[in-house]
Each structure stands twice: as C-alpha cells, then as structure tokens.
C-alpha cells in the first residue's frame, strides 16, 4: 500500500511538472509562438474545469446513492454547449467587444457600469463559490485519508482531516498565487494556467477512464456482464425523483454559464469565436467520457467493498482494494488535478472580481488624488489579487471546518450551483432584453440570493447550527409559510429543488417587474443597446468628450496600471495612427475609449470608467452630463440653423438693397448727366432757333434763298425739340398706364416691312438689313403701330450705334407654343456688362453717339412691350448685340 509520504511526493512532483508546463507555455507565448497554445483542443480541455474533484469522486458516490441522477450535472452543460448558438455565441462576442474580465464585470457593464452591482455580484460569487472550494478540500483530504490506512480504535482516521485540509488549502493557495498573479492584465490571458489546466484535464480523463476500463473489463469481464451486474445490483431499476431530474438539469446548465471560473474559461480566455463551435460537440464528448464509467464503478464498489465504505471514494478505493496501487495513485492524481485546476481558476476569477470591483474602487477613493497619484498601481492590484486568493481559500477552509467535512460531496456542490445560478436572470435578461434595468437586476439578484442563503446555504450547516431547529418546524417567529424547506406551506418538495425553484422564480419575477417599473439611466440604455445588438454593431459605447483631457496625465495613469513600456507602446501606436510624430496622441474620443478598454482589462469596467472620467475633466464627466450637453447642443443646433436661415435671408435682402442702391446711385448720376444733356439738347436747338430768328428779324437784305435756309433750320430744330418732348410725353404716358391700345390683327411681315422702310428712310443707308425665317403668313394680334414703333426703334438704334465697317442687322423670327420671338442681331460692338443693366432705363445712353437721341428709345420700347404683354431683352454675344422682342402667342394667330 502506498504510503502517505509517497503520495505527497507524487503530488509535489506532479505540481512541479505543471509549473514547468505553465512556465514553458508562457515563455512560448512571450516569444510569439503561442499558436499551439490557443487551439480549439486546448479551449475544449480548459472547459473541463467544470469537472471538479466533486465530479471526479462525487459522481460515483452520487450514483451509488441516487442512481442515474448524477448525469443531470453533465446534461445541462452539454445542452448549453450544443445550443451554443443561443447564448454562448453572444456572451463570447460581448466579452470580446467589451473586454469583459469576469461575470461581475459583465453584469456591471451591462447595467451602466454600475459598481454597486459589481460589488454585489462579487460578494455573491465569493459566498456562492466558498462551499465549492470547501468541497475540493474535502475531496482531496478524503482521498488522502484512504491511503493513510483504516480508522483506528477511537474511530479516528490516521489522518487528521482538519490539519490535512489546512495543508491542502495552504498548498492550493501558494500554487494559485504563483500561477495566476504573475502578470496583471486579465485579458492578456493566462497562457500558462490554461495549458496547465488542459494538461490536468487530460490527466483526470485518463485516470477516470483507466479506472472505468479496469472495472468493466478487469473486474466485471466486459460490457455484457457489466450490464448484467448493474441490473442485478441495488441500482438495477430505474429510480428517479422527477422534479430533481428536471431541476438539476436546468440548474447545472445555469451554473455552467454563471460560475465565475466557467465564465473565465468560456468567455475571458476565449481566443477565437470559432473555438466555441468546435467545443460545442467536443466538450459534450468529454463530459460523456467523464460520466460513462460512473455507474459501473459505483456498482462494482457497492459489490466489492464492505458496507459502510464511503461511496464518494470508490474511484480510489476500488483499485486499492484490488491491489492496483499504481491505478489508485493515478486516480488520486486525477482527483487532485480536478481539485487544483478548479481552485486555481475559480480563485483567479474571484480574485480578479474582488480586486477590480471591491479593493480598487475603495483604494482609489481613499487616495485623495484619485487615479492621478504617484506610484505604480500595478503592485497594489497584484497585492489585492493575492490577498483575495488567500481570503477566498481561507473562506473555503472555514466552511470546510464549519460544515464538519461530513456532507455528501454532491449536496455541497449543488448548494454552490444554486448560489451562482442567481446571476442567470440578470445575465440573460441583460443580453437579450434591452428593457432590463440596473434596479431590476439589483433587486432580483438580492432577493434570489437572500432566498438561497436562507433556504439552502444556512440549512446546509445543519439544524440548530445557524438556523434554530424551530425554524424548520414552525417557521421563523412562528411564521409558518417561511419555513426554509417549505415556502408558502408547500411541504414535501426536495430541499434543493425547493431552493432552486423559489429563488430563481422570485429572482426572475422581481427582476422583470422592477425593470418594467423603473427607468434606466442613459448609460444603461447605451450599454443595453450595445449588449443586445452586439452582432449589429460590435463597436464601443461612445463616451468621452475629450478635449479637456491632458494626454500627459492619461499617460501617467496608464503607465501605473498597464506598466510603463506597455503604456508607452499603446500611446505611441495611437499617436502614429493619428499621424503624429511624438509619443503623446491627441485625446480623441476614440483613443479614450480604447484606453478605457485597455484599463478595464486590468481593473474592470467600472473602475476604468471612473479613472478615465477623473482624468478627462477636473470633475468627472458623466455620460448623463454628456447626454444633457448633447440635448442642449441639439436644441442650439436647431436654433442656430433657424438663425442661419434668417441671416441668409437678411443677407440676401441686403444684397438686393445694395444692388438697388447701386442702381439708384447710377441712375441719379445718369439723371444729373441727362439733365445736363437735356438742357444742352434743348438749349442747342433753342440757341439756333433764337439766333436764326433774330437774324431773320434784324438783318436786312436777306435773299429768299437765305431766308428759306434759315427758316428750314429753325423748322428742323423745332421738329427736333418736338420729337424730344414727344418722346418724354410718350414715356410718361406709357409709364403711367394711360396709354390706350388699338388691338388689330395683321401680318408680322408687314409690320417689319414698314419698320425697316421707315427706319431706313431716316438713316444714311449704310445698314444692311436682312431677314431670316420670317414666315409670310405669321399673323399678330396686338397694337400693330406700337409694335412697329418698337421695331423702328431697334432698327434705328442699330443704324446709329453699329460701328462695324459693314453694318448688318439680321432679323429672324422664332415661334414656340407660347411666344413669338423676333430677334434683331447686329454686328456692332457688344454693350459692356456694366451698362447692360441700364440700357432699358430712362435717360440711359451707352455710347456717346451723335447726340440726336435722348436715351429714351429703349425705355419706351420696354414700356410698350410690357403693355403688350410681351418683353424685350438684350442677349450678350461675343460679337454684336441681340435684342429679342417677345410677343405673347395669344395675340398671334396663324394665317389661313
């Protein structure tokens, strides 16, 4: 028989081997050769920390006591893995996009980065997992006691269970501290730990399979005889507590998702989402193999070993009884592996939670300078984690001592499961329901947890240990419906089912009702949208308004948490991405978010959020503030756009006014010029008329010819005056709208003919007038005389002002459905742009011509056309001018 010392020696060698494996893995990871460390196989094997020493030893004991019920503990996780598509896929994606470090971090981040919630979940997890750690101590101690020989005369084991438990706890604590807190960033992932637990997963599987194969083929003699033996045994018929079968399947599924250590390996240590898909069938295979030989071992143990042997230890005691010491040692190592891997990961996960959500916030709030005080915070965090590990294992030991190390392993494990399963409503509600609120989660968690403590945890110490026996008989203070095993007076439920049923039911109901009644804060709503719609946008919540944050302060803070070189590298990369050459990037919102995520990997979401917010403003800038600011800015934006519209309108009006003013000024100048001109115009003929009339009056001896000549001069000048006055009168009449139009119908061509002849009669005959496209049958119905006046004016203008060597005027007619356009195109000097606006104004004169015009012609034309319902425009040309007279079509009739 193997001595205790040999066993301790083997265990130590085994632990040393694990250390070597972990160390080698971390070295490989540092060198960047970590590809093989992160394979789907390693991921699947790391999930096997679900199978703890409880599973390893306890399952056989469970089977020996309750038949097939033990298998429910594996069915739940198998269903979760097979249904990975529903929950795990989303959890893993959220975990990666939000850089979640633990289950408390997940729940806290979902409900508005609430630290209260994080602390409560952390405390619940610590309390919930404590029995589980006690369970590991108990199984390893029990297994050791088997090797130490039979109980002596006083009924005591050769091994003192308390001191053995103490040494096992101490060993596990040292082991975990050395393993798990070598590096800080939880999201840098514990390569060494993951590899070590993968190795342990193989060891425990091999050990259990070896014992199983030995039992089936070595003892029973094959599958057929084994089955016969099973049917013939006390376990031979199907026996089932139906409520337990269903409840435990659901409970184990819930615990699989909620246990902090499972969350750690499932989500935090996950490297690739595709690994989850492979694990979806590979991990059920592992679970199947782990549970395959449980019933055979139990049956053979019950057959072979004396009545009263502890069935929890059949895995070790059966080979030992058969003289297979080597197999027994292997089996012990399997159980030892299960215990160590579970304790390492569980305490690591819990210590991360404790240090991030409890110790660091307290530490930071105690330091007056907040996150900006001097010194390396990393040491504080590491110390906090190490102390948390010691604390958690110490709690486990205390529970072990208090519970007397006597309860069946499975019962203790189920208490733990029920405790952590309380996270499930808040967790699933958080990732599937946007309406879930912080208060809802808080009240659900607290109520569920309270019911669990009252109905499951406290009674587990035994009646009269914590709760007086009277509670169980008549209820607390005589309140019958509050008996711990019979809420609302419903007797006869299995205690575990009772606790699970009522705690989860109340938890869920309160969670939903309070969520429906309360209103979430803005940050909660942001995070809720991010979590629920994680597949639509894997981006980050927008948070920081950054211009006030000083990069240097951020750098100092980041150095203390991430480490100097890591922080510098991060800042340098960010600066480079922003296209800057220095070491300090601009504190853009994107950079601050990234920094917050990096920090949250070390200190948790809520703390990182608080730290960055301390840096970003003198006072912390909450998202509420930002949203308020955003609301205000939206209002201001609207207001300012209204203002903008108004100001645009004003400036348009101002432009028009300026234009009008310019026009007025110009007109006034022109008017002055015209007055000068018209005085001159009036005066010149008047002067000649006066002079010649005086000559004719005073001079004597004038010949008839001379008299006639002088009289003609006077006549011509008088006509000129008359014409000028006529024009002025005409314009005045037109402008005042007093003109009467004599509408008549006639051919357009005739009007043009008349105009050309009339105009040419008074010209020098140099202008060549051609006509194009003038259909002879085009009839117009309008005031033909007035239209003719316009045409005459245009032709006369061309005659007067066309300075080309061979002046040419082309008249063409274009007709469309509505209008008839008559174009007068000459080849003279184009009218300058500056003058174009004025040519149709009264008294406007573009070129200083022969002085015979008074600048009224075009003004009259425009007035006439306006009266006729048409228009006259000038179209600038590269060479020459085009005047277009538009006559409305309704006054145009086609000829017969």
């Amino acid at each position: 028989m193997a001595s205790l010392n040999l066993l301790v020696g083997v265990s130590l060698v085994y632990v040393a081997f694990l250390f070597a494996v972990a160390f080698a893995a971390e070295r490989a990871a540092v060198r960047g050769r970590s590809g093989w460390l992160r394979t789907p196989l390693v991921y699947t094997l790391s999930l096997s920390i679900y199978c703890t020493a409880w599973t390893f030893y306890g399952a056989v004991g469970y089977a020996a006591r309750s038949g097939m019920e033990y298998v429910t503990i594996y069915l739940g996780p198998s269903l979760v893995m097979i249904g990975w598509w529903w929950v795990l896929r989303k959890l893993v994606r959220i975990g990666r996009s939000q850089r979640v470090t633990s289950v408390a971090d997940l729940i806290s981040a979902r409900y508005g980065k609430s630290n209260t919630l994080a602390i409560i979940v952390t405390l619940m997890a610590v309390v919930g997992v404590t029995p589980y750690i006690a369970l590991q101590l108990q199984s390893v101690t029990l297994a050791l006691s088997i090797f130490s020989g039979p109980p002596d005369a006083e009924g005591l084991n050769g091994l003192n269970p308390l001191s053995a438990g103490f040494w096992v706890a101490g060993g596990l604590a040292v082991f975990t501290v050395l393993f798990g807190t070598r590096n800080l960033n939880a999201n840098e992932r514990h390569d060494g730990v993951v590899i070590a637990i993968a190795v342990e997963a193989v060891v425990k599987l091999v050990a259990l399979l070896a014992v199983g194969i030995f039992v089936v083929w070595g003892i029973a003699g094959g599958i057929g005889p084994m089955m016969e033996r099973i049917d013939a045994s006390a376990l031979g018929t199907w026996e089932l507590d139906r409520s337990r079968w269903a409840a435990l399947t659901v409970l184990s599924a819930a615990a699989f998702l909620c246990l902090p250590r499972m969350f750690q390996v499932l989500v935090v240590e996950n490297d690739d989402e595709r690994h989850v898909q492979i694990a979806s069938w590979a991990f059920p295979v592992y679970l199947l193999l782990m549970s395959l030989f449980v019933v055979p071992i139990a049956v053979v143990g019950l057959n072979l070993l004396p009545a009263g042997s502890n069935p929890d230890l059949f895995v070790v005691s059966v080979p030992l009884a058969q003289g297979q010491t080597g197999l027994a040692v292997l089996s012990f190592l399997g159980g030892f592996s299960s215990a160590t891997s579970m304790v390492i990961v569980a305490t690591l996960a819990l210590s991360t939670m404790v240090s991030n959500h409890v110790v660091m916030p307290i530490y930071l709030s105690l330091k007056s300078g907040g996150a900006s005080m001097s010194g390396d915070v990393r040491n504080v965090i590491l110390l906090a984690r190490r102390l948390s590990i010691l604390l958690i294992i110490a709690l486990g030991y205390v529970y072990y001592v208090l519970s007397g190390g006597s309860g069946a392993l499975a019962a203790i494990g189920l208490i733990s499961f029920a405790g952590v399963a309380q996270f499930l409503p808040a967790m699933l509600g958080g990732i599937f329901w946007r309406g879930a609120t912080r208060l809802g989660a808080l009240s659900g968690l607290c109520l569920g947890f309270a019911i669990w403590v009252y109905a499951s945890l406290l009674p587990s110490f035994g009646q009269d240990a914590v709760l007086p026996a009277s509670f169980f008989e008549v209820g607390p203070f005589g309140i019958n419906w509050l008996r711990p095993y019979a809420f609302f007076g419903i007797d006869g439920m299995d205690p575990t089912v009772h606790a699970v049923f009522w705690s989860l039911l109340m938890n869920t109901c309160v969670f939903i009702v309070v969520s429906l009644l309360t209103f979430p804060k803005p940050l909660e709503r942001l995070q809720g949208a991010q979590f629920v719609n994680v597949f639509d946008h894997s981006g980050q919540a927008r948070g920081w308004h950054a211009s006030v944050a000083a990069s240097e302060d951020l750098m100092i803070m980041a150095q203390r948490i991430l480490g100097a070189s890591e922080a510098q590298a991060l800042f340098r990369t960010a600066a480079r991405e922003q296209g800057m050459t220095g070491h300090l990037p601009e504190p853009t919102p994107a950079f601050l978010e990234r920094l917050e995520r990096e920090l949250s990997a070390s200190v948790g979401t809520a703390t990182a959020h608080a730290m960055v917010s301390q840096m970003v403003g003198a006072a912390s800038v909450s998202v509420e503030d930002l949203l308020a600011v955003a609301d205000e800015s939206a209002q201001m934006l609207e207001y300012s756009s209204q203002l903008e519209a108004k100001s645009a309108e004003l400036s348009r009006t101002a432009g028009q006014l300026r234009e009008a003013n310019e026009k007025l000024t110009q007109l006034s100048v022109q008017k002055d010029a015209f007055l000068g001109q018209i005085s001159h115009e009036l005066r010149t003929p008047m002067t000649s008329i006066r002079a010649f009339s005086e000559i004719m009056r005073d001079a004597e001896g004038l010949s008839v010819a001379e008299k006639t000549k002088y009289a003609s001069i006077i006549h011509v000048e008088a006509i000129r005056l008359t014409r000028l006055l006529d024009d002025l009168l005409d314009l005045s009449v037109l402008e005042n709208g007093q003109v009467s139009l004599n509408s008549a119908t006639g051919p357009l061509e005739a009007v043009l003919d008349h105009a050309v002849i009339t105009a040419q009669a008074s010209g020098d005959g140099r202008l060549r007038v051609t006509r194009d496209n003038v259909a002879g049958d085009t009839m117009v119905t309008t005031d033909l005389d007035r239209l003719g006046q316009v045409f005459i004016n245009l032709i006369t203008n061309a005659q007067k002002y066309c300075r080309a060597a061979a002046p040419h005027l082309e008249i063409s007619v274009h007709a469309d459905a509505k209008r008839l356009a008559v174009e007068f195109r000459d080849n003279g000097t184009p009218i300058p742009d500056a003058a174009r606006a004025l040519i149709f104004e009264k008294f406007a004169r573009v070129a200083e011509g022969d002085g015979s015009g008074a600048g009224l012609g075009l003004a009259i034309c425009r007035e006439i056309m306006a009266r006729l319902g048409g228009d006259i425009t000038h179209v600038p040309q590269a060479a020459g001018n085009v005047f277009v007279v538009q006559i409305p079509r309704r006054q145009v009739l086609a000829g017969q």
Partner: protein
Amino acid sequence: MARGPSSPVFLERRSYRRRRLQDAQRLLPVLGMLLWMVPVLWPTRDETGHVTMSAAIYYVFGVWCLLIGLSFGLWRGLKRKVDEGTEPPAGDP
C-alpha cells in the same frame, strides 16, 4: 429569425441551405432537452413496467451520442458552407 428590411426575400440555393443548417443548429438543444426529459415519464421502481438501469444507461448515452453526432455534422456542414460561400456568416440572432 426575422431578417432586416435590407435582407433579400429569396436567397440563392447555397445560402438557403446554410440558413436551414443554422436553424437545425438552433433547434438541436430543444431536441436534446425533449429527449433527455423523456426519463421523467418512465415508471420508477415501485410502479409496474419499470425500466432496467442498463436500458436507462443505453438510452441516456445513446441520446448523448446522437446529439454529439448531429452537432458535429452541423459544424462540419456549416464550416464547409462558410468556406464555399462568399457571404459572411449571418449575424442575425
């Protein structure tokens, strides 16, 4: 399994097959739950027509193997479809 408004109404044959495989994947845990809850209906020790332990073991582990096989098959099928298809894996829940 609602699609967004921008999703096409009809899918080409390959995407259609892939979506149906995904549906199967989603329904697999429901099937597992149903099959594993069947033992609740079995008569127990004191009742007539009780089931032997060996039969129970064969049944529970048989369902287990079936589910693992189906899960494995779906994983293989989807992996091939994703490798073949140009469309990225659907993100709708």
